[in-house]
C-alpha cells in the first residue's frame, strides 16, 4: 500500500497537497464502478488466519480474529458492495459461532451483555461501548424497539404475522415499585408494525379500554389521547370484547400462559398487566379454540364478579 494517494509524502505546502489529493480522491470515488454481484465477506475464523507474510505455522489456538483484506489475496482487488444492512452478519455465521464457542471468555462475555446480540455481532467487547451504557440500552431497547425502528426508518423484516408485545414502557431499570409507572402500556396489533400506547390509568373498566383500542387500530383517522387523558366515557358496546370483531385482546400472565383480557376484575387486570409485558391483538387463526357463549362486558368494575363467572371467550364469526 505504499502508493495509495501519496497524500503525505513529499514537499510542498501541506494545504496545497491536501487539496489536490482531495480532488483526486473524489474523482476516483466517482469513477469507481460498483459491481453488484460480489459481496466480500470478512469473517472470524480459527486456525490459519494471518496474512501470507507470516510464514510460520499458525497456532492461534482458540483466538478468533477478524481477517483483513490481505487474507483474501484473490478477492481483495474486487470492489466491495457497500452492504446497507452491514453488521457483522456479513461474517459467515458458522465461523463466528466457532470462534465464539472456542473461547469460554467470549461466551461468558456474550452472556454478560444482557440482551443477546444478533447472530452477527459476536465479537467480544465490540462495539466499544461501556458496559453500563450497553446494559442501559438493552433495558431500554427491549421496551422501545418497535418505536425506535420507526424512528430510524428501519423496516422490520420478519414475517407478516408480527407478534409484537405490549411492553410497559417504563419498565427500564425498575426493579421494585411499579405503581407509579403503571400507566403506559403499548398495544400491538397483529399485522401492524406500529404499536400504540395506552394509559391504563385513564380507564376504569374494560369497555373504555376496548373502545380506545378500537379507535386506535380500526379507525386510524381518529387520534385518541392515549397518554392518560380524560377518563373515557362509555358510549357504545365494544366489538373487541363481545366477540364481534375479528380480533381478540390477549395478554400473557405470570405463568406465561396467554389469557384473554377481561377475564378478571379490572383492578386485578391492571396488576397482571403491570407484572407481565405481553398483550396482543390476535388474528382469528391464532385464537384458542372458542368456548361457548359471549357475555356482554358492558359493565362497571364493581360488577365484575359476575362477569368473571360468566366470561368465557369471544366467538369469532365467519
Amino acid at each position: 500500500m505504499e502508493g495509495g494517494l501519496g497524500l503525505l509524502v513529499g514537499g510542498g505546502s501541506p494545504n496545497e497537497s491536501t487539496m489536490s489529493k482531495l480532488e483526486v480522491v473524489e474523482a476516483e470515488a466517482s469513477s469507481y464502478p460498483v459491481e453488484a454481484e460480489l459481496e466480500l465477506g470478512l469473517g472470524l475464523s480459527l486456525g490459519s488466519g494471518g496474512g501470507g507474510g507470516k510464514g510460520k505455522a499458525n497456532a492461534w489456538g482458540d483466538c478468533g480474529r477478524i481477517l483483513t483484506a490481505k487474507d483474501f489475496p484473490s478477492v481483495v482487488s474486487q470492489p466491495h458492495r457497500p452492504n446497507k444492512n452491514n453488521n457483522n452478519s456479513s461474517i459467515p455465521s458458522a465461523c463466528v459461532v466457532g470462534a465464539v464457542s472456542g473461547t469460554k471468555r467470549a461466551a461468558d462475555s456474550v452472556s454478560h451483555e444482557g440482551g443477546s446480540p444478533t447472530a452477527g455481532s459476536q465479537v467480544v467487547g465490540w462495539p466499544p461501548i461501556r458496559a453500563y451504557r450497553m446494559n442501559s440500552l438493552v433495558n431500554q431497547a427491549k421496551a422501545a424497539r418497535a418505536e425506535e425502528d420507526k424512528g430510524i426508518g428501519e423496516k422490520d423484516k420478519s414475517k407478516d404475522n408480527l407478534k409484537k408485545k405490549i411492553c410497559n414502557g417504563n419498565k427500564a431499570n425498575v426493579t421494585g415499585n411499579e405503581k407509579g409507572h403503571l400507566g403506559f402500556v403499548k398495544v400491538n396489533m397483529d399485522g401492524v408494525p406500529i404499536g400504540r400506547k395506552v394509559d391504563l390509568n385513564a380507564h376504569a373498566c374494560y369497555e373504555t379500554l376496548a373502545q380506545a383500542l378500537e379507535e386506535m387500530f380500526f379507525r386510524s383517522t381518529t387520534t385518541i389521547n392515549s397518554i392518560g387523558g380524560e377518563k373515557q366515557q362509555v358510549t357504545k358496546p365494544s366489538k373487541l370484547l363481545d366477540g364481534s370483531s375479528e380480533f381478540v385482546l390477549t395478554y400473557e400472565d405470570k405463568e406465561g400462559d396467554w389469557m384473554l383480557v377481561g377475564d378478571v376484575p379490572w383492578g386485578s387486570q391492571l396488576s397482571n398487566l403491570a407484572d407481565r409485558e405481553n398483550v396482543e391483538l390476535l388474528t382469528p387463526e391464532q385464537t384458542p379454540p372458542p368456548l361457548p357463549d359471549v357475555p356482554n362486558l358492558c359493565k362497571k368494575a364493581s360488577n365484575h364478579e359476575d362477569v368473571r363467572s360468566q366470561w368465557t371467550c369471544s366467538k369469532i364469526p365467519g
Partner: protein
Amino acid sequence: MNYFPDEVLEHIFDFVTSQRDRNSVSQVCKPWYKIESSCRQKVFVGNCYAISPERVIERFPGLKSIFLKGKPHFADFNLVPHDWGGFVYPWIEAFARNNVGLEELKLKRMIISDECLELISRSFPNFKSLVLVSCEGFTTDGLAAIASNCRFLRELDLQENDVEDHRGHWLSCIPDTCTSLVSLNFACLKGDVNLAALERLVARSPNLRSLRLNHAVPLDILQKILMRAPHLVDLGVGSYVHDPDSETYNKLVTAIRRCKSVKSLSGFLDVAPHCLSAFHLICPRLTSLNLSYAPGIHGTELVKLIRHCRKLQRLWILDCIGDEGLEVVASTCKDLQEIRVFPSDPFVGNAAVTEVGLVALSRGCPKLQSILYFCQQMTNAALITVAKNCPNFTRFRLCILDPTKPDAVTNQPLDEGFGAIVHSCKGLRRLSMSGQLTDQVFLYIGMYAEQLEMLSIAFAGDTDKGMQYLLNGCKKLRKLEIRDCPFGNAALLMDVGKYETMRSLWMSSCEITLGGCKSLAKKMPRLNVEIINDNDQMEVSADDRQKVEKMYLYRTLAGQRKDAPEFVWTL
C-alpha cells in the same frame, strides 16, 4: 532561585494548579521539589498500582484530594475480568492510619466496598467530595454511611457505576443539619429514593448547583424540586413521562421558566417524547446537552430541541438523530467543541449515521476539539475533508460498527483518511481508529502524531512493522491499547525501554507469546507484566511458544502487586 524564602515559593506555586505543571515544577531542582511536594494538595495517580499509598503520603504530606484510576480502559468493554483488581481499600486504610486530612476522593474504574465507604465516612472529619466513575463493589448501604457521617458533604457524584441497590433510605440519612450540598448525582442508581427526603434536602441546600436524578423521580417531584432550586446550573432529569394537558405539566413549565441558570441538561431516562417543548425555554442558554441515555426521543424531537441550542459547546447524543439531524447541529451549534454520537441499537449492528454527518459537523463547527463517533461507514475522502475543516482536534475517536470495513466508496483501507487526521491535527492527544487499516496508517501516526498520548487500535495492521512505527514515532505516547492485531514478539521487544516512559500497554488477541512476555519482564524489572489467564487458557507449565491472550503491562515503583487474583500472573 534560592533567593526566595520558602513561603514565597509556596505562594507562587499555589497558582500552578494543573498536575502536569506541578510535576514539572518539582523537577526543576531539589529545593523546588521539596517545597512543591510539601504544599501540593491535589494528587492524581493514573494507575493505582504504579505507586504505593505510603509513598504518596510520604511525599505529599499536605494531601487533601486524590484522583485514582484502577482497571485498564478495556475493562469498560468486558475484556477484563471483574475481580482483576483496582481495590481502593488499601489506599483508604493507609490514609486513615496516617491521619491524612482527606477531603476529596475521585475514583475511576475501581472497586470500592461498603466497608471502605464507611471507613471514609468515619476517618476524615472534613470529607467533602466523593466522585465515583465506572466503579463497582458497593451498595446503597455504603452511600448511607457517607450520607450519615460526612457533616460537610458538598459533592456526591455517581457516574455510571454498578451499584447494588438495597433500596434503603440512604438519601434520608443526610442529616437535617447538613446544608452544604452543592452537587448530587445519583442518576445511575436503579432503585427508588425517598422522594419526600429528596425534596427536603433540596429545600435546605441553598448552594445546590448540580442535581442529576435517577429514573425513579417522577415529573411532579421534578417540578417541585425546580421550584425550590431555581439556581441550578446542571440538571439531570429522571423520568419524563407525563400527560401534556395535566396540571403538573403546566407547573413544570412555570418552574423551568424560573431556572435561568441551567447550562447543562441530561437524563430523560424514561421519556414520553411529545412534550420536550417545555425545555425549549432552557435551550438557548445551554452549553452542555446529554441525551445519550434517552432512546425514547425520536430524531425529529431531538432536532426540534437542538434548533434552540445555539450556545451548545458539548453534545452527547444517539445516532437516531441521523445525518440530517447532524446537519442541523452543524448549522445551529457554532460553538460546538465536543460531540459524541452513540449507537442507539448496537446489537443490530446498524448505525444511523455515516460519513455524511461527520463531514457536515466538521463544516459547520470549526471549533470542534473532541469527537466520539459511532457510524455505519466511513470514507477516506470524508476524513480528509474533516481533517482540513477541523485542525483543532485533540481527541478523535471513530468507531465503525463493522471493525474492518474499508472505505465505503473506494473499498480501500482507511489509512489515508486517518493519516490526514494526524497530519492536520497537530495537537491530537487521543486517537481511536477502526475500519480496514494496514501498516501504512501506523507509519503516518508515527511520523505525524507528535502529541499523541493515547491510542486505541483494533483489528488493524498487517505485520510487526505497524507497532514498530508507533513505538518509534510517538514520543509522547502514554497509553497504548491493542486488540486483535497481528503484532508479535518482534514488535513487543523492539524497544523495551519505551514502556517505562508510558503508563501502560494492553495487548489482547495478538501474536505475542509467553516467551516474549517473559523476556520483556526479565529485562525490565520496573514493569509489571501481567498475563490475564481467565478461562484457564494457559497452564502454569505452558510452553513459551504459546500465544498470550491478554497482556497488560505498566510501569511501577511498587513492585509486584499483592492482590492479584489467581488468574493473573505477574511475570
